[in-house]
């Protein structure tokens, strides 16, 4: 597993939730949205374990229904519980993003005492 994949693994649940919060999607569309957002080397398959996990936790609900193009697709929508979880993920992320950016990126400007 690449370092990038490992890093993403923990936060991918949050990314998937935030896409689903904005609109009801099925797997393929979800993977396209993630790619468009810039997560280019997330293997498209990795969303399926994430979707299963989110369903198991009750954060999203999946339902098979016909798509505009014809065949049935499994559409996912966020649940109230999922919205709470997403809010929490956002808060946690905001709390660690800044210090990590400084820690990992700030070496050049670091002052030595």
């Amino acid at each position: 597993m690449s370092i990038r994949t490992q890093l993403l693994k923990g936060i991918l649940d949050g990314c998937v939730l935030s896409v689903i919060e904005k609109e009801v999607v099925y797997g393929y569309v979800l993977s396209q949205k993630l790619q468009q957002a810039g997560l280019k080397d997330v293997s498209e398959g990795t969303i399926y374990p994430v979707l299963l996990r989110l369903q198991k936790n009750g954060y999203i609900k999946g339902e098979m229904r016909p798509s505009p193009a014809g065949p049935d697709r499994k559409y996912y929508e966020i649940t109230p519980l999922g919205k709470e979880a997403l809010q929490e993920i956002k808060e946690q992320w905001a709390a660690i993003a800044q210090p990590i950016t400084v820690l990992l990126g700030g070496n050049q400007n670091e002052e030595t005492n």
Partner: protein
Amino acid sequence: MKKPIKTLIAENNKKRKLLNEENVTYYENFLTYIRSHLFKDERATEEVLLEIVDHLLLAQEEGKSAEEVFGKNPKELADDVVENLPTEPFRNIFVFGVELMTTLLASFTVVIGIMDIFMGQSKTIYAGNALFIIGAFMALLALVIWIFMKMLKEDSFNPSKSKKFYVFTGLTFMIGSIAIALLANKMPAFGRAIELGEYGMFGVGCVLVLISFLMKKIREQR
């Protein structure tokens, strides 16, 4: 209303045919591996397998291969999927086990029943012996299924599929059955004696066939 699981499987079979040669191999290994986990929720399993075949078909239209979209390590992804699938409720596993056993028992009883009628033999069975045979047979069946699934899991992503394990499981089943038959033959009669007459065994067989048929129908409607 939810579609029966049988319909989901039929749709999968149809869609799989639309994959090109390279993608179909990739997908079928994946499918075999995931389906070999018997204690996972069947509906959830079939739904995610359908989603994945749909995904591969859409990617294929865009000229992307399964390996490009799902990565070079399908086993890692499959393990990740399996880990997150809900488990099948124990009740369903139990009922399916009973159905399997009834079906097998039904076919044996019908065959023996026909032989009894043909030979005009009146039959007495002993409850103790019958229970022993059924118990031993159930244990054998569980063992055989366990071996088969274990081997299937190990073989799913093996590029040179060996069919050896079919032979191996078949042999285990045969040797086990012969051993049980020999044991049953040597065992002294115990338990209550039940007089079945010439047609009794066949009658019991027919009832069992009916029960297993009904169980199958009910399961498929789920």
